[in-house]
């Protein structure tokens, strides 16, 4: 019996069967996209689609986890007990968002340890905005109003993303984010109705966060090479520049209610376009922070690494306990 030939024949048959399955899977995948339906974890999907989603969802999860830090900076010093409670709840929501997102990424075949390892070794990216620092209380207002506001503009379309687990996680996240944005607005409103020192604190903070918040939508469309494919896959629904415009249009009337000045001399209503014009952004600043040279890149990653390493013995104990319990249950059954 010639085993080599048998193996080769089997391998060929397997490859052929796989190819047929792939072709059927691809047809179905394209049908799902064409009919605006959801792709689920058990469905066939192109490797590029899977990789793009793993990257995007895990980065999004990392952003939530790193994003806890600039705000947790003010939990201990929050100036009223009500604000302290709201801030604690908000940071806790962010941990929850990180968990939903990691779970969504896990359905694509990556485990949490791998994602966490990429985060704490500095290999993974997360939203650059969290590499800025929060020196004043007003920054809690600016993060809510501007940063969460920009996040909502980005994330509402993601509720309709083609990948089911991601879209469903986003529905829940968006509900909480809109609460976060409102409370940020409320912090700034209270400051702007307060003493001169409070008004100054609010304006100074908005001055620092405005441009970085606008850059959260990513580079201008002509410099965003991956966008086209993501749009074809129903992952991305609107271009970076469209979303940025939508955000600016939303901000201007809100800034008027607050009584803060948006630090952009070119900001004015364009009757013809039906939108606000706004000034050019300093993209060299964006790329600097992205390259790790922001105000707090090293601090953010090392703080998360420290928490993870300091907790290693706790996780190990929980695992050992669970193993021992499983062992004794098996003993009882036997």
């Amino acid at each position, binding site marked *: 019996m010639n085993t080599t030939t048998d193996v080769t024949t089997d391998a060929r048959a397997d490859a052929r069967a796989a190819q047929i399955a792939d072709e059927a899977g691809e047809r179905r995948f394209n049908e799902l996209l064409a009919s605006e339906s959801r792709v689920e974890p058990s469905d066939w999907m192109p490797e590029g689609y899977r990789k793009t989603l793993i990257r995007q969802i895990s980065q999004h999860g990392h952003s939530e*986890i790193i994003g*806890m*830090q600039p705000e*947790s900076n003010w*939990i*201990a*010093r*929050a*100036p*009223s*007990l*009500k*604000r*302290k*409670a709201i801030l*604690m*709840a908000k*940071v*806790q929501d962010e*941990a*929850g968002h*990180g*968990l939903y997102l*990691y779970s969504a990424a896990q359905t694509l075949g990556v485990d949490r340890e791998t994602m966490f390892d990429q985060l704490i070794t500095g290999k993974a990216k997360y939203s650059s905005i969290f590499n800025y620092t929060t020196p004043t*209380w007003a920054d809690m207002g600016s993060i809510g109003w501007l940063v969460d506001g920009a996040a909502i503009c980005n994330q509402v379309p993601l509720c309709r993303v083609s990948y089911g687990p991601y879209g469903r996680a986003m529905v829940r996240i968006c509900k909480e984010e809109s609460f976060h944005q409102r409370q940020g607005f409320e*912090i700034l409103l*209270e*400051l702007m*109705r*307060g*003493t001169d*020192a*409070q008004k100054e604190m609010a304006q100074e903070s908005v001055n620092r966060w405005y441009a970085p918040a606008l850059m959260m939508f990513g580079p201008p469309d002509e410099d965003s090479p991956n966008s086209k494919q993501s749009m074809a896959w129903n992952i991305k629904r609107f271009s970076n520049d469209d979303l940025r415009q939508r955000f600016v249009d939303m901000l201007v009337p809100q800034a008027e209610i607050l009584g803060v000045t948006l630090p952009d001399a070119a900001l004015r209503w364009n009757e013809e376009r039906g939108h606000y014009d706004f000034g050019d952004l300093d993209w060299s600043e964006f790329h600097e922070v992205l390259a790790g040279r922001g105000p707090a890149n090293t601090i953010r990653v090392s*703080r*998360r690494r*420290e*928490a993870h390493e*300091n*907790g*290693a*013995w*706790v*996780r*190990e*104990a*929980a*695992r*050992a*306990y669970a193993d*021992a319990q499983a062992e004794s249950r098996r003993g009882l059954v036997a």
Partner: protein
Amino acid sequence: MSHSTNHIASTAITPESIAQSLASSSDLPDVAVATYALGLGDDALVLAQRLGEWIARAPELEEDVALGNIGLDQLGHARSFLTYAGSAFGKTEDELAYFRDEPEFLNHQLFEQPNGDFAQTIAKQMIASVYFVALYRGLAASNDAMLAAIAAKAAKEVDYHLDHCVQWVKRLGLGTAESNRRMQRGLEVMWAFADELFRSDAPTDSLVALGIAVSPSSLRPAFDALVPPLIVASGLTVPVTTFTRGGGRAGLHSESLGPLLAEMQVLARAHPGASW
């Protein structure tokens, strides 16, 4: 007359609803009741402040959420008790939290102790939770309707806190040699502050006689029935330590409260009279 017989729905009670109902009420607590509420509020506030320090530092994300949740519950209890206490002194919860100095804080010393490692935090939180469960169950039957309502709501929440801590004491005690060593050390550190929780004092005793307060010493049997067996079942040893002198209810504190308050109060005090 503080101990009205009006029933206050405990499920809907919030610091805001308490403030609102007291604003239009002639039924404010007297100084003795308010001082008692102040002590309870300070216990919860100082503990919440410590728990907040864990956020974004916990051993895993689930624990970030859990400790944050426990801290939030404690902060809610603090706000309710302080709002009630403040109504007797014409002060808001924030005026009490941010503009009193260290000797005016009446919390037991256990709550101000630094977090230490995760095991030490769990040891503290476990002792605290056993105390709160027994205290709030008793206080839910208080002749003071407001204290009863706040306690009835809090009692349900601290039940979960206790369960969370019991689960961790077992896991750390029975997990690995290192977790056992750390859990034992955490217990040793916090044990010295447990006794203070169960010591009676004259002002509380006079309210106990009126059916308003819960006698601290009456809570001891519940602690003794639960904690030493849990420790032993978790492969740990019940600590044998001398107890601290205590005095938190009289404004005497360890060296840890001052820095905690300095941090908590810094911004509010930099802008006196401001609203946030």
